[in-house]
């Protein structure tokens, strides 16, 4: 039972939920942007490109927030 929340084991497990949320948000935001741009410009490939970009950015964000501190 440590005073600092980031150190306690329960919050380590709960980081999993936050990671899940970030990854989902990455796919939603950039996948969504890719999908809409693809529809507008009539380039079908923009949707998968957006999804990949979102996944990569979300993974990087997870690394920045949770990977580096430990």
């Amino acid at each position, binding site marked *: *039972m440590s*005073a*600092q*929340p*980031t150190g*306690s084991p*329960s*919050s380590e497990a*709960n980081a999993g*939920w*936050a990671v*899940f*949320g*970030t990854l*989902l*948000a*990455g796919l*939603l*935001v*950039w996948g969504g942007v890719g999908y809409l741009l693809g529809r507008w410009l009539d380039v079908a490939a923009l949707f998968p490109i957006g999804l990949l*970009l*979102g996944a990569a*950015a*979300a993974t*990087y*964000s997870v690394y*920045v*927030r949770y990977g*580096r*501190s430990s």
Partner: protein
Amino acid sequence: MLTRLGAAGEGYVAPSLGAFLFDPWVHWTSFGHEFYINKVIGLLFFGCLAVGAFFLLAFRNPKVVPGPLQNVAESFYDFIRNGIGRDVIGPEGVKYAPYLTILFFFVLIMNLYGILPVAQVPVTSRIAFPAFLAAMSWVIFNYVGIRRKGLGPYFKEIAFPPGVPKAVYVLLTPIELVSTLLVRPFSLAVRLFANMFAGHILLLVFATATVYLLNAPNFSKIFALVSFPMAVILTGFELLVEVLQAYIFTILTAVYISGALAEEH
């Protein structure tokens, strides 16, 4: 399989959305809106009264050496205060323990209705209830964060994770904002709702299938020997899921409050 059963004549009718819709006990119109009180609302009122009455009675006349009721209520409260408030948020988490305790027991009883005789429908399987509770958690963690850090710094901390090249923020900031401000409340509500909804459907399928198979005209009757134990086992499983989901909802609310309070390292 269910459709194949249904192919021969009337057949088995699988439980549908109708299982979640109840006829109003009373309804009236005021301010141009129609209001209903049905079974779900009745269960909601009763649950609020039960949880409220329990804690009021237990702590109405607190003693240094607690009586049996106060003893039970205190151990419940200690469990949430220490197990969630202090462990997740830290020493100042004790301040949020009353809300977390009431939240836990409210969600718990709304879930447990799913396997309680007579009630037999989880109130939280109607999306409005989890959605409102998630909205409350959202308001609380944002309010707490803004009050602690100020409006600007709070959103800056959400939107701009430190130690990232500036150009990358173009990619990361939308993700961080959506993840914290939209995905969090949405997943909180949907996780509770979907678990309760699916669990209730599961119980209904095996319970109604048992009745259907018992009334089958041929040897199919013996399959009731499979579906009935499944209904019993799944009732036990639902008990586990209902307690677990109430716990997860409470602990995630605490995690979000803790995240809003924590200083960025």
